């Protein structure tokens, strides 16, 4: 009976992981959209469509809009793409890398938001939305790391309940034969 729980546990964990992956993918795509728009307006020298009068432009023209000459919008774009790509690496390394990139993005976004509020004293909703998405991604990717154990084995089932795959198959065969 504990075996069937483990089998069921594995499948629900797989489902949870898949849902987390979809959620991460969706947030990444939105992030890529925002970052692409900001990168495009930066290089095309266009004004950003801004719901807060003047805020976006002030922020985009500030010294903090670039990191050693590289627009932060480009850094954001690279970050979102990297997190999206990390989903394709289906092992522990991929999950932890995704989390690491999201954490860097989230912490740096926090710093930039601090600069917006206290130094530039202007708010750019596009930038804030990107900061929110990076924070979301940090939670989602962290959840994946915690939730899914090494090599895809569900971490939740590791408390002595689980049985190695070969053994599980043997038990399942035996159960089937008994029926």
């Amino acid at each position, binding site marked *: 009976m504990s075996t069937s729980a483990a089998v069921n546990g594995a499948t629900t964990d797989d489902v949870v992981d898949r849902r987390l992956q979809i959620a991460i993918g969706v947030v990444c795509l939105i992030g890529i959209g925002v970052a692409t728009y900001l990168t495009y307006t930066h290089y095309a020298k266009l004004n950003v469509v801004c719901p807060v009068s003047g805020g976006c432009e002030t922020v985009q023209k500030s*010294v903090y809009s670039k*990191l*050693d000459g590289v627009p932060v919008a480009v850094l954001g774009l690279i970050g979102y793409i990297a997190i999206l790509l990390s989903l394709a690496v289906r092992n522990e390394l991929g999950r932890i890398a995704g989390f690491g990139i999201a*954490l*860097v993005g989230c912490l740096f976004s926090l710093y930039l938001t601090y600069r917006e509020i206290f130094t530039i004293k202007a708010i750019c909703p596009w930038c804030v939305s990107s900061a929110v998405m990076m924070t979301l991604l940090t939670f989602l990717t962290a959840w994946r790391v915690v939730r899914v154990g090494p090599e895809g084995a569900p971490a939740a089932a590791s408390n002595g309940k689980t*049985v190695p795959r070969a053994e599980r198959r043997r038990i399942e065969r035996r159960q089937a034969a008994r029926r």
Partner: protein
Amino acid sequence: MASRTKQKEEARARRLAEEQARTEHARRQQRIRMVLGTVLVAVVLVVAAVVISSGGGKSGGLQTGTTANSTVTEVNQLLNGIPQSGAVLGNPNAKVTMTYYGDYQCPICKDFTLSGGFPQLVQNDVRSGKVKVVYKAFCTATCNGPNPGVFNTQQVAGLAAGKQSKFWYYTELFYRQQGQENTNYVTENYLQGLAKQISGLNLTQWQTDRNDSTLTSQVNSDQATARQIGVSGTPTLIFQGPKGQATPNSGVPTYAQLEQAIKQVS
């Protein structure tokens, strides 16, 4: 028989479970190390990025190479095509005049010029000919610093560029490469370095004009006027138009606040 097989099976399952638990434990330890390592690397990366970012905003100083090139390009994009005469930027017949009391070493002036409402004001209202900006010198940060005597030298360096209608290029370049307060960064090398970045500036002529006593008098009279009208800090912005006078009530006014002042006086 059946119970014995069952016992055997159970014992085997237990053994396997124990082994499994051990490997799981080792794996978990490794995982924890990996996650902690990732967090550590992330924090180090962000700290480095923050240091670079704040450095760009704070330490400053005369730029060289590609950084200087990109700063010059930014300044050219902002100013090219807008008429200049002495310390005046924009159409001389503009309906509204914004007098900007500033000090080249004042960090709040830098914030206003770079990230406050100023760039947008230039782009929209000065470029269109609606507003002109008149820069007047008023010693604040420099006079609170270790070498107040350099105030006249630095402001005259700007006005000397103004004799070739390039005052605002010099001013923008100064603010964009402003050094950290109290570090005596305004040296002869620094002042000449800025002048060299201005394309089309005749350097020999600029050097000659720096000795023009009328420019020093202009700095002095700017300061006298400032004291007379009660200017106490920089930047102080005074808008004048057909409907009178207005001053945005903020250290680093946003574009919206500047617009409001323009509306009030025009």
